C-alpha cells in the first residue's frame, strides 16, 4: 500500500542525508521525496512516499522519529488527507491537429500550457499522483519528450496540523 509520510525536520546540515540514508540502510524504498523550508526557516518539511504494510509503515515512522533531527513524523495515509504533485511535461506538438487534441486534453485535466515552440508544448499539471499518471497515459501516444514530477506533498484534512 502506498504511504505518504510527512516529517518536520530541523533545517540542519546533514539532516536530509540521515533521512535518505535510513531508507537505504534499512532496505525501504523511497518512491518520491520532496523537501523545502517552511514559514519557520529553522524547519524543513519533508514528504516522502513509500510502499508498505501497516507493520512496515509503523517501523518506518518509528525509525524516522528516532533520528535526532526529526521533530514530528506522521503517516498521512492513516487519516484523510490531501495529496498534490506538480508535473511539467514537454510533448511533441508540431502538427495542427495534435496541438488541438493536446489543448483539449490539458483542459480536461485542468492543466496549463506554459511554454510553446513550433515543435512542442510544455504542460503544467497539479493533482494527486493518479491524476498525473492518467494524463501521461492519455498523451503518451502523442510523443512525450520529457517529464518532470515534483514528488508528492501532503497535508492532513481538517483542523489538525503539523507544527512545532
Amino acid at each position, binding site marked *: 500500500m502506498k504511504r505518504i509520510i510527512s516529517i518536520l525536520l530541523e533545517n540542519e546540515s546533514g539532516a536530509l542525508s540521515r533521512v535518505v540514508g535510513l531508507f537505504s540502510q534499512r532496505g525501504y524504498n523511497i518512491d518520491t521525496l520532496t523537501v523545502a523550508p517552511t514559514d519557520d526557516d529553522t524547519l524543513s518539511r519533508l514528504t516522502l512516499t513509500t510502499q508498505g504494510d501497516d507493520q512496515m509503515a509503523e517501523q518506518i515512522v*518509528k525509525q524516522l522519529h528516532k533520528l535526532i533531527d526529526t521533530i514530528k513524523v506522521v503517516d498521512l495515509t492513516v487519516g484523510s488527507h490531501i495529496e498534490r504533485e506538480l508535473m511539467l511535461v514537454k510533448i511533441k506538438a508540431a502538427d495542427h491537429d495534435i496541438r488541438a487534441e493536446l489543448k483539449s486534453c490539458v483542459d480536461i485535466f485542468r492543466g496549463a500550457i506554459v511554454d510553446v515552440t513550433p515543435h512542442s508544448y510544455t504542460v503544467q499539471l497539479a493533482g494527486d499522483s493518479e491524476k498525473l499518471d492518467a494524463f501521461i497515459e492519455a498523451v503518451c501516444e502523442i510523443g512525450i519528450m520529457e517529464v518532470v514530477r515534483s514528488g508528492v506533498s501532503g497535508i492532513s484534512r481538517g483542523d489538525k496540523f503539523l507544527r512545532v
Partner: protein
Amino acid sequence: MELLSGGDILIRALKDAGVKDVWGYPGGAALHIYDALYRQDDVFHILVRHEQAAVHAADGFSRATGEVGTALVTSGPGATNAITGIATAYMDSIPMVVISGQVPLTKIGQDAFQETDMVGVSRPIVKHSFLVTRAEDIAETIAKAYYIASTGRPGPVVVDIPKDVTDPSYKVPYHWPAETTMRSYQPTDKGHRGQIKRAVKTLIKAKRPVIYTGGGIVIDNAAPHLIALAQKLNFPVTNTLMGLGGYPGTDRQYLGMLGMHGTYEANTAMHHADVIFAVGARFDDRVTNDLEKFCPHATIIHIDVDPTTVSKNIEAHIPIVGTCTSVLTEMLTIADQLDIESDAEALGEWWQQIDQWRADKGIYTQPRYEPSEGTLIKPQDVIKMLYKITNGEAIVTSDVGQHQMFAAQYYLFDEPRMWINSGGLGTMGFGLPAAMGCKRAFPEKDVACVTGEGSIQMCIQELSTCTQHNLPVKIINLNNAALGMVRQWQDMNYSSRYSESVYEDSLPDFVKLAEAYGHVGMKVTHIDELEEKMRECFAMQDRTVFMDICVDRSEHVYPMQMPGGSMRDLWLNKTERT
C-alpha cells in the same frame, strides 16, 4: 568574560562534561586540540597505538563504569580507523563521544590532504553526529553530544571539528550551557501505566514464565530492580550474551545464557514458556533462531527504551516503551498493590520441569564435554580455572570466537558490568583495548582479557599502550592455533575443509612478544601446570601478563542451535542433539 581559542574551549567543555580521560591519537587536523591538551591538567589523554583501540578502550571504560567514553582522533585515516570501534559501540548501545579533527572549513570538499567526510562515513553507525563550523558553537555541541550519547537508548556520537575552528589565534567567550534541551530529541522515560498494569497481571497469571533480559538491564543499571521482581515472582531468568551479570549467574533462578550457544535449560524453557517477559533485549537473530518457530505458546511482554526495537522482529502482545529501571520499579509497586497471588502450584511444576532439564542436559550440573585426555588442556577448563582463581570477581573482557562463548558460558557473572564483550558487531580485536579501558576505570580490580590467538593479533600493538600507561591487564589467550569458531563451522557445514582458518607455522612466540613490550609472558601446555601458572599470573598485580595457553583445538562450542530450527533445537555435542 574569558576569551578562549576553539581548542581550549573544546578541552574546557570536555572537563565541564565530566570527562577525565580521553583515548586518542594525534595528527595534523587535530594538532590545535592536542596543543590545548598539553597546556592543561584537567583532562588526561591516553595515547594508544591505533585509533580502533582508542575507541574500543573508551568503549570498555564506558561499559565498566556506565559513564560516557571519549576518543579523539585526527581526520582522514585517523577517522576511518575509528570506524570499527564506533560501529562496535553502536551495535551494543554504548554511550560514547568520538571527536575527530577535520581539514579546515576552507578546504572541505577539495580532496584536501587527509580529508574524509567523517559525518558521511560514520552516518549509519552513530546515534548522531555534528560538524562544528564555528568556535562559538563548540561548547554547546559538546554538551549536546554528551547528552545525546548518554540518554534514551545510548550510542556513539561523532563530533567532527575542522582545523580552523580550533585556530589558537581566534578567541571567543566560553560559555557552558547550564542545561541541554532539544526540541527534536526527547527520549521516553516512563512507560504507559495501563500497559504496565496489564503486564503485571499477565505475569501473575503465568504458569510457565521466563524472564529474558539483555544489555538494557546493564546499560540502565536496572539489575537490582530485575532481581527484586524476579525473586518476588519466583520466575526463572535467562540473560543474553549482552545481558550477562544483569541477573546473578550463581542464583538458583538463573538458567544461564540463551540463544545460539545458550544452555539447554534456558532455550528449552523459552520454547515451552506461556509468558515471555523480555526486558532490555531485542529478539536478536542470535537468540531467536528461526522467527517462524520462535516460542509458539508465549504471550510476549516487551520493555525497551527504544520504540523501534519493540515488535521489530517479534510482535509484542504487551509492548512497553520506557527505561528498564522506571518500568520495573513501577511494576514492583503495582505488584505490591494488586492483591493477586501468583499460581504457586503451576510455578512449582514449572520449576520441577526446569530442574529436570538442568539435571539431564545442563552444562552446570556436570561437564558435557569429554574430559581432558592426558596433558591436553580443555578451553572450558581454562575459564573454570579463571573463575576459581579470580573468585568470580574479575572484570572479563573478550574477543570474538570460541573463547568468547566459553567465557560467556563458564564464567558466572554475579554483577553487571563485569562481562565486557562485542556482542552485536562481534569485533575481533575488541578485547585488549577494552580491557585497558576497564583497568583504567578500576585499577584495583583484576581485569582479564579472554582471547584467541586470532583475535589478539588484531590489536596486539596495544601491549605498548599498557606499558606506557601502566595498565596491568591479564591476557588469557586460549591458543588453539586456529580461527576456532570458523573451524567449528567448517567442521559442521563444510566437511572439515579448513579454508584459511589455520596459520601453518606462522604464529608468533607470544611469550617473547610480551617480553618485547616489557611484559611478562607465560606459556602453558600441560593441564597440571595451569592452576599454578594462573595463580602466578594474577599474583603479579602490577604487571601485564600474557598467558599463552595451548588448548585442545578439536573442541567445539555446545550447545549450539541448529540453523532454521526453533530455540530448543540444539546440538548438545558432536553427536547428540535434542
